[in-house]
């Protein structure tokens, strides 16, 4: 998102600055009107951010300092809610499961989308068709795909167990066993998101200048070598982006879980956001739930900063 906004503003400021120097005396007025125009164009985006992001976030901060069931008046409790979660085993349990989910989700997603991007790019023909096909799940609403996958996963009547049954595999209760539920949800999540990240990798791949490959071929590099020494290093920014966004996504996963397992069976898929949801909308503990969301916010922020540091995106 921010990538799209920045060039517009910077070019506007540039024009503004240029005219500032040209016009000499009348400079300040001119600068004003163009800056105003810039702000006017930014206004809808800024307003949207304010109304739907910033203000609710500040409000959550305010709520987190209170005890509130959503119906009565708020009671100020200071930082009590923040002290409470320190010995909340269920919260840490849900965080642990969230990390596990990240491990189940991010690496397969990363490799699947990279491999698909490479395949699609190198297809001699029909690559547009395949690109569209692989992208299709992204267009689908996660609710609908969740419902479809629930049917596929059904222990007695589902397609997956029937297919596996042909190979002699005993029926697996995908969504209702402690061992499989989280894996099953992660599989759907990967399936849903691969297409999107494939497009990002494709864009990254197309940005790599062709002449580097040509030079490498002339130097006698084989395909594997050029992939390892040219493609991968040149995809570093794309990979960073994919990793950060998918890790954040894995921390925020909610709709699929709500729909497919609702945190069950017996909490096997009770990830952080689901836990926050239950705290607020089942137990009506809004203050505490807000404190938990802010905690999750900071965890995600720390992870993002760490990732950016590790992958040194800031130095470029």
């Amino acid at each position, binding site marked *: 998102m921010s990538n799209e906004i920045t060039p517009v503003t910077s070019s506007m400021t540039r024009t503004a600055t240029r005219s500032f120097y040209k016009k000499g005396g009348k400079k300040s007025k001119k600068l004003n009107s163009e800056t*105003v*125009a810039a702000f006017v164009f930014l206004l*809808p985006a800024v307003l949207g951010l304010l109304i739907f992001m910033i203000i609710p976030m500040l409000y959550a901060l305010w709520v987190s300092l209170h005890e509130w069931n959503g*119906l*009565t008046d708020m009671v100020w409790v200071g930082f009590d809610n923040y002290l409470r979660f320190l010995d909340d085993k269920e919260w840490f349990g849900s965080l642990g499961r969230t990390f596990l989910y990240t491990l189940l989700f991010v690496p397969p997603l990363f490799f699947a989308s990279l491999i698909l991007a490479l395949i699609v790019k190198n297809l001699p023909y029909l690559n547009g068709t395949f690109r569209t096909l692989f992208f299709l799940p992204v267009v689908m609403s996660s609710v609908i795909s969740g419902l479809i996958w629930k049917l596929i996963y059904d222990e007695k009547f589902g397609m997956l167990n029937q297919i596996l049954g042909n190979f002699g595999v005993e029926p697996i209760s995908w969504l*209702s*066993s402690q061992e499989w539920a989280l894996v099953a949800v992660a599989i759907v999540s990967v399936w849903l998101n691969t297409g999107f990240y494939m497009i990002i990798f494709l864009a990254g791949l197309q940005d790599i200048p062709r002449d580097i490959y040509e030079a490498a071929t002339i130097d006698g590099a084989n395909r594997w070598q050029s992939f390892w020494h040219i493609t991968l290093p040149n995809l570093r920014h794309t990979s960073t982006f994919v990793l950060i966004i998918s890790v954040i996504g894995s921390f925020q996963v909610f709709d699929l879980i709500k729909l497919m397992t609702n945190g*069950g*069976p017996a909490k096997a898929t009770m990830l952080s956001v689901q836990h926050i949801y239950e705290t607020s909308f089942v*137990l009506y503990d809004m203050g505490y739930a807000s404190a938990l969301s802010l905690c999750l916010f900071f965890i995600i922020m720390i992870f993002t900063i760490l990732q950016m540091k590790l992958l040194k995106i800031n130095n470029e």
Partner: protein
Amino acid sequence: MSNIVKLKKSSFILVFVLVLIFVSACSNNESTSKDSNGKNLKLEYWTNSGSESEQIVEVMKDWNKQNPDTQVKVTMIPGSPTDYYQKLSTAFAAGKGPDIFAISPAELVKYVDSDLAYPVNEWIDPNKDDYFENTLAPITFEDKIYAFPSNMGMLALFYNKKLLEEKGLQPPKTWNELLEVAKKLTTKDRYGLLIETNEGAYQNYEFYPFVWMNDGDILSQDGKKVTVKDNDAVRKSLKLYRDLMKSGVVSKKLETGGYDIEYLAKGNTAMMLSVSPGVQTLNTKYPDFEYGVVPYPVPEEGMEISSAAGGWRMMISSKGQDPKRSGDVIDWMTNQDTEQPISIVKKSNRFSPRKSVIEDAGEFYEEYPMDLFANEILPIAKMEPSYPAEVVKAVGEAIQQAMFTDTSLDQIIEDLEKKSKAAIEKK
């Protein structure tokens, strides 16, 4: 040049105006004509879709005809009860809650505690004999009645007659028989028995009768003491659920609510626990389907049966436009003549909490299986208790753990007691 500046100024104003229009269009400014004198009152009445809401819509048409000064708009909120409550609490938090709303026992306490429930003592006299005695207890707090009692659905065991006959089986009467019969009826593509497996208030509701049959309970009658460990009733019932699950005869994952009688009618299961409104679906949608109904099996032969009666109570919002007039509406619908209640219970196969209504509905309760509900189950049914949300959740988690994990039952009971105690002390 100045033209451009003007143009930009005007475009700025234009954008600003557009944004204002957008923002104001988002806020709901529907003007409800408020008039405390009762003139042209428009009351909002929310129910969860399903349940008896369609009948309520019908009955309210009569009210609206007879009372041009007080029009009632019934809104059926689609989705599960959870979705309904989410919408309800958000609406109240935003100061836009309905005047009248349906509420189930598991959620009732919250609204009472938040001072949103308008006491209905001026319409319902607890000393009058018409209401079954246990129907008022769960909605009475310190002598005040906080909702109109509900039409009750009652739990029982439904079974597929043909399948049992084919195997020469009798419907189970004891827990052991339940397990045995379920085992014999389980096939590769059919469950022997279907019980609710998703965590939530309905699963608890289905579970309570098992505890009650063993003379146990989660909380004491007044709701002030945790009785989970007073005897082994809860433990035994959790063990039954665990045994059923481990033996592979029960449903594990359900797409819809565990009360959905269509599972039985479509042959997905041979037996299931469900509620009396299921009779309505079976008789109208599946007239050729042969089914039977028996009370919940008991732990051992000779013990007393049990059932839970549940349903939606009607609450009057104390923050509504005119709580007194809203109360009059529900009073008319449920508490005055027997005509309106009868038309609702007949079409939803429920039981009115009023003896007079059941008497007047007469022959409706003489036909199988409603006679079984009326004669055997109604007299012993207990009302679904109104526990605080934390207790409801703790019970739900205990059932889930019993069914889906290997945690020892002692540990589960221990956790349940600890959580329930914490919840009660918090109050």
